[in-house]
Structure formats: structure tokens, C-alpha cells
């Protein structure tokens, strides 16, 4: 149930009681620099939100704060109704992250990596779930390959497999398309679209327009650590979107 197509709405307008993830006034300082400044957003079931912004805007920082791998200097984060600071374990079991690095052990096989994380997350019926996830990622015949022997594309797919293994309600992705060929990118996009349609929420940061266009129902734009606008994806055409984005951050969105 989304709230798209109702025109521009203020950033925190998602109905609060159905929000799977709610971030309020997140601020993150690195020593003297401020990477995130008063960022608030919420994700509802079915949301597929694109996180846009130029390099250095704080996209990776925001994703890491939402994934709880960084503590915000100020602000609150609620995942599935659980306060991420007070009950970190419960909040974390509902989050999945596909970051810049695969978070996989290069010297373990795909299967061993998945078993490790499955056990850490307490995934029931682990063997069956691993088989499911390997199938979804197209890695069945790479099950027993050491991760460091896989190509970048396959490693990325293994990373996605790892991220969805424990059925998280929110999936966070940080520029997942880097290093992937077109076919893999399309495959990943479809996987995410299906997945979000299943009543979960996805937040993807990206530089590439077709990702945003074909997958997301909302886009939020970050500049210098601040949320400068939120765009509904259904209404504007690709050129209108690119124009609006340029207005906001002064750079072009990559289109190819």
C-alpha cells in the first residue's frame, strides 16, 4: 500500500503507523565534519525508494546509519516498531544491507558464508532457505566455490543472497549496480521489484536513472548531508526528473 501519485508531499508524510522504518532527525558528525544533517524519512510496505545525490552528499553514510552500522550523533531510528538503539538485535534482524563491499568471507564458499549468516540471524529451516536464495540469485552451481574466485557480478549476487537470507523487512542497497553488467542489473532490478511488492521496503542509492525510473515509486534527494526534496516517480517524465534533479543539486543524473 503506497502513497504515491498524490502529487508532491512533504518528506515524512508516509502514514506513520504503517511505516516499517522510521528515521527522525538523523545527524551524523565525523569529528568536525557533518555528514548528515537532520535527515528524516520513513519507509512503508511496498515502498521502493531511490536515494539520489551527488558524490559526497552522504548517501553511503545515511544507508550505514539506517543499517545500524553507524551510530547517529543525534536522532532516532525505528525498525518495525522497534527502537534500534534500545533493542538493536531485534531491529537488525529486520534489516538487510547490500553495501559497497560484499560483507562475505573471500576464503569461505558461498554456502559456508550463507550458513554462517543464517545461523547468526537464527534463520529457521536454514538448509531449505539457502537453497531457495541460491536459486533466486542464480548461484546454485557456484554453491561450493570460494567467494574470492567468483566474478564481481556473481559476488554481488551472493551479497544480495546474503542480505535477503533472513527475510528482512527492509533492504538497503548502496549503488548495487556498480560492476554489474546489463543483464545482471536487470535481473537484480526484477528481484528487488518482486521483493518490494511482497510487502517489504527497499531503499536503493544510485547514480543511474533507469534504476530510479523503473523500480522506485519515490525518490529522495540528498545534498551535503541534507534532504533537499522528495520526488514522486510516477508523475515526472525522465527528462523532467533529470531537470528537477539538476535544479536541486546542480549535476546531471547519469542516464547511461
Amino acid at each position, binding site marked *: 500500500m503506497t502513497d504515491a501519485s498524490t502529487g508532491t508531499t512533504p518528506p515524512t508524510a508516509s502514514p506513520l503507523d504503517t511505516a516499517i522504518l522510521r528515521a527522525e532527525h538523523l545527524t551524523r*558528525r*565525523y*569529528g*568536525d*565534519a557533518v555528514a548528515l544533517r537532520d535527515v528524516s524519512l520513513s519507509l512503508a510496505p511496498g515502498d521502493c525508494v531511490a536515494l539520489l545525490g551527488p558524490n559526497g552528499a552522504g548517501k553511503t553514510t545515511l544507508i550505514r546509519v539506517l543499517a545500524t552500522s553507524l551510530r547517529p*550523533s543525534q536522532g532516532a531510528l525505528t525498525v518495525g516498531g522497534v527502537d534500534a538503539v534500545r533493542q538493536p538485535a531485534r531491529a537488525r534482524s529486520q534489516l538487510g544491507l547490500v553495501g559497497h563491499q560484499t560483507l562475505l568471507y573471500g576464503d569461505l564458499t558461498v554456502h559456508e558464508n550463507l550458513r554462517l549468516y543464517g545461523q547468526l540471524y537464527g534463520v529457521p529451516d536454514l538448509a531449505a532457505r539457502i537453497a531457495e536464495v541460491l536459486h533466486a540469485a542464480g548461484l546454485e552451481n557456484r554453491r561450493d566455490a570460494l567467494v574470492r574466485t567468483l566474478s564481481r557480478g556473481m559476488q554481488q549476487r551472493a551479497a544480495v543472497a546474503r542480505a535477503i537470507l533472513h527475510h528482512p523487512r527492509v533492504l538497503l542497497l548502496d549503488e548495487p549496480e556498480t560492476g554489474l553488467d546489463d543483464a545482471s542489473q536487470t535481473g537484480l532490478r526484477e528481484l528487488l521489484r518482486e521483493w518490494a511488492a511482497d510487502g517489504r521496503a527497499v531503499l536503493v542509492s544510485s547514480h543511474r536513472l533507469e534504476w530510479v525510473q523503473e523500480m522506485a515509486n519515490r525518490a529522495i534527494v540528498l545534498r551535503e548531508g541534507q534532504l533537499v526534496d522528495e520526488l514522486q516517480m510516477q508523475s515526472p517524465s525522465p527528462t523532467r526528473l533529470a531537470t528537477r534533479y539538476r535544479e536541486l543539486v546542480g549535476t546531471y543524473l547519469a542516464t547511461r
Partner: protein
Amino acid sequence: MATIRQEMALPAAAAGRGSALTTILTAATVLLTVVSLGMIVFYAPMERVQGVVQRIYYFHVPMAWVAYLAFLVVLVASVMYLWKRDMKWDRVARASVEVGVVFTTMVLITGMLWGKPIWNTYWTWDARLTSTLVLWFIYVAYIMLRSYTPDVERGARLGAVLGIVGFIDVPIIHFSVTWWRTLHPAAVVAPTLERTTPNAPPQTVITLLVCLLTMTLVYATFMVYRTGLERLRDQNRELEQLAGR
């Protein structure tokens, strides 16, 4: 966009806050220092065996007291920082480490200066001196850790952990070193210098107590100036960053 002044919420008398108290403290410290020096030279009785040299005791012991007191303050500030995450506690910890390491160094030096005329050797692995030397190393490790950690928040956090974990060790180190020394006495068997004999005349005890009080005030005065300096440094850094943006 708020002005820099608003952003910083600079108090009107940032450096001079509580300056009346600071002046009084400084004055009291100076006064007491003069009094103690006078007592050490004129009032304290001459020790039979060691002679004039023994008067180093009135510096050495109070400094040792402060060295350990400073580390206790580091412990408290570390716990408070991890709890409240207020930078002011980190400033107290930083300042106390710097002042503490100076006093610890002075304890070691006065110990050596005392040792040479009495034992004819600068260093003996006497239990107290050895424990103090280990404390010195923990202080130095803290300083090195902070200097290698450019991010202030991370440095404060890691420093706080070290402050807590290091302090826990102080009694253990003291205990194990003392025990070791009782089983394996040093090559030069020296009477423990720090303890006054049961028959010490009251003037010795009084002088020592006055010196203890003085040294504590010296520590407190240094701390006030040092934390003030650290706060100015922090603010300076924040201003530079704002200006650079």
C-alpha cells in the same frame, strides 16, 4: 543558515567562565606552595640517617598521591563520557592524563634523585617505583592512542575504554609487583622510603599533610587551566571547520 556565533552558542565568557573562582584557586595554590616550601625547609625536622636529602620525601609522596589521583579522575571522566557522551568529560580525561603523566614522571625522577645519595644507585626495582613506572607506561599509551586517532569522537571513546580498563589494572599491578618483590627482594635492600616510622615526630606528619594538600591544589589548578585550554582548542577546531566549509 545560522550565523557562526549562533551555531557555536558561544558563551559570552567562554574562556573566562568562573574566572573569579579560578583566580581564588590560583592564589590559594600559590600561597600554600610558599607555605609548604617554608615548612619543608624550616619546620620539618632533620632526619637522622638520611639528612637533608630526606626532604625530597615531602615532594615525592604528594606527587605520587596526585599521580594516582589523576588516574582516578581519568576513570571517573571516562565512565561519565561513555554514559553522557558530553565532550566536556573527555576534556577532563585528556587534561588529567596530561597532568597525571607529568606528575608520574616527577615521582620517578624524585625517586631517582632520592635514591642516588641514599642507595648509591639511581634505580632500584623497588615495588612502589616499579608500579609507578608501569602506570607511567599506561599514561603514555593513552597519549599515543589519542594522538593516533584524528577523529575526536572516536578518540574520546577509545580513550575512555583505555581509561577504565587501565585503571582496573592499577591495584592488580601494585599487588603483584609488591608480592613479587617481597619474595625476591631487590639486589639493594632499601628501607621503604615512603612510610614514616612509628616514632616520626608530629612535625613530619604535619608537613607531609600540608604538602599533600598543596599538591592536590596544584593539580586542581593545572586541571582548571588545562580543561579550559582544551575547550578553547575544541572550539577553535570547530570554528576552523565551519569557516572552511
